[in-house]
């Protein structure tokens, strides 16, 4: 039985507000003791690299650098879609602490086991 809450993030540095919001929600979940994951797909995979959150800011929201660190500190995990990291040349050696490259089967297994997913537009 999986009790994970998986928050999908599809936007990267090119759209700061859309990039930060999933992390805001996921961090709240993690701070509340839930098993929270941010699943980064498409351009969001860049956020999971060393230095990938630099400069990702939006009025009224915490900086993603601070938020990312707080999320990991609260026990959160960041998954980077393998199908999205590969064409972008993102390899394991540039992945940030707390992030890991995964494939679809990993996500499917969690959902089949009962994980809940949250999609952000």
């Amino acid at each position, binding site marked *: 039985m999986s009790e994970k809450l998986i928050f999908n993030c599809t936007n990267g540095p090119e759209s700061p507000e859309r990039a930060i919001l999933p992390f805001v929600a996921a961090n709240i979940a993690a701070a509340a003791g839930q098993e929270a994951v941010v699943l980064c797909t498409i351009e969001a995979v860049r956020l999971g690299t060393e230095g990938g959150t630099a400069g990702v800011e939006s009025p009224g929201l915490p900086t993603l650098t601070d938020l990312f660190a707080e999320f990991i500190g609260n026990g959160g995990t960041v998954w980077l*879609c*393998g*199908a999205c*990291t*590969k064409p972008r040349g993102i*390899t*394991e050696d540039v*992945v940030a602490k707390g992030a*890991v*490259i*995964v*494939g*679809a*089967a*990993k996500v*499917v*297994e969690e959902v*089949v086991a009962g994980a809940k997913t949250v999609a952000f537009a």
Partner: protein
Amino acid sequence: MTTEAAATALLAAITSRDMAATAAALHREVRVRALLPGQVELIDGSPEVAARLEAWFGGAEPFEVVTKEVRPVGDKVAIAYRFRLTRPGADAPTEIEQTWMCAGTNGTIETADVLCSGFRPLARSTATTHDYDAGSLGCADGLTAAFKERLTGVGVGDLLRVTTIDPSAKEDLPALARLMGHTVRSVEAHTDGALTITVERGR
């Protein structure tokens, strides 16, 4: 007839694969709740229960009753059995154990909760290991299809040893194996960044 007598008759019918007797041993509107590998199945009515048992065990050859027992549990009766069988179309024998917790009145079984192991491969000391180098195949590169094809070529109970250097495959292969009903026997990381996952084909 007591519930124990009805359960004893049910056990005799199931272990002899007499589905007509199985249906007769159950209340016509029996409600069975079966916990099967990966799912819960609700089976209502004695004909439907008999049909389900026929689907599981009918036609298996050889078919051996390894153990069977009946035991009262307060006002309920438990029956349990273990079979060793080779199902039609299967290339290797399997074992299955089911336990029924039966309840009823007036000597009929009206409800039953069933716990099922699923068809388990027999432990083989001479399992064959097959090697597959998946290289850099990943999530979107056809890894799933390739992995599935390779496993199909391995006998039930045999091992497929997969080596990969793709980061997503390292996380995905164990999950894929489990989703497909197989067992991950070991995961070994290498100093060059590669990973070897050994999977036992389960079905």
